[in-house]
């Protein structure tokens, strides 16, 4: 009974060298198909090897190098342009981000300043522990003081610097008198 036909790989190995000849010898002896396949591949190889391609003139290689040089210069210019465009786009993106986020950060900064001032005040003794509080309570009518504070708060907002100075001076004088 005939063994299986040679694979393309085995046939190629046999066509290009004697590799695998021993183990496939028996099959090749009895199989015309595989013998022909190996022979055709071997003929193809011999034909292929025995062929030249026209060699360009020595000038061609130089011209080819110059042509590539121009192509690569253009490629470098495109790269530089792409780099600048990327940089410009990145810078624009950063500026836009700053423009969008700046108010948020400024707002946060204000809050932080407010917190800081609260912290600074918190260094004072707590209201319950303040020994001067009973004395102040005795000196001032608390309700009147509260009313003046509210009134002053809304007035100071619309006063000019000069007016603020005058009002502050008057207050100091009044406070001094009370003491």
């Amino acid at each position, binding site marked *: 009974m005939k063994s299986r036909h040679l694979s393309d790989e085995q046939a190629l190995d046999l066509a290009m060298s004697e590799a695998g000849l021993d183990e496939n010898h028996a099959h090749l002896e009895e199989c015309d198909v595989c013998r022909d396949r190996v022979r055709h591949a071997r*003929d*193809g190889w011999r*034909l292929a090897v025995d*062929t030249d*391609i026209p060699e360009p003139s020595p000038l061609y290689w130089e011209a080819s190098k110059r042509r590539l040089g121009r192509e690569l210069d253009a490629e470098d210019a495109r790269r530089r342009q792409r780099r600048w465009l990327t940089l410009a786009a990145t810078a624009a993106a950063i500026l836009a981000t700053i423009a969008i986020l700046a108010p948020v950060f400024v707002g946060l900064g204000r809050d932080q300043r407010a917190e800081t001032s609260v912290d600074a005040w918190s260094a004072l003794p707590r209201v319950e522990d303040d020994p001067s509080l009973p004395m102040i309570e005795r000196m001032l009518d608390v309700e009147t003081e509260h009313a003046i504070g509210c009134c002053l708060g809304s007035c100071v907002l619309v006063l000019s610097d000069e007016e603020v100075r005058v009002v502050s001076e008057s207050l100091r004088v009044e406070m001094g008198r009370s003491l």
Partner: protein
Amino acid sequence: MSHSEKATASVGEDAALVKAYQRGEREAFDTLFERHQRNVYRLCYRFVNNHEDASDLVQEVFIKAYRGILRFRGDSSFSTWLYRIAVNTCLSYRSLRRPAMEEFHDDKGANANDVIERIEKDERSRQLREAVSRLPERQRITLILKVYHDLKHADVAHVMGTTIGTAKANLFHALTNLKRLLEKGQGGAP
């Protein structure tokens, strides 16, 4: 120096040039081009079978190499990497099929027998190139890499992005088809 020693030295020089280019020396790429343009040209010529298309392909291959060389990490030799680019460029190239430009020979001073012999050889070569150019693309490339660029089966497989078995099978079919084409006088597709 033996052939394999030369080849190893050449691979080392290529690697050094690649590194030099990656450090910013543009001249290193020019040297790589000088070292490899002939091989790439021959591969492309055998694939398209005409000088003009082969020239365009060479330029395209090296521009692609230039674009990719910064990412080349040396997992294979530079020449294998370049062959891979060349093969992919050839496979995606749709030629306008310009007529082949015939070689010019200055036969001044040659005797009649030499001239006849040369014409016969040229004619044989032309027919063979024509037959090669009619092979299916992957068979054609495999044949070119193996027969004319003397790559090992493993390297052919790597360049083609396939297995050694498939590369060998492709070569086998290329050779048998080539023989058939030449017997038929290149008539029709294999």
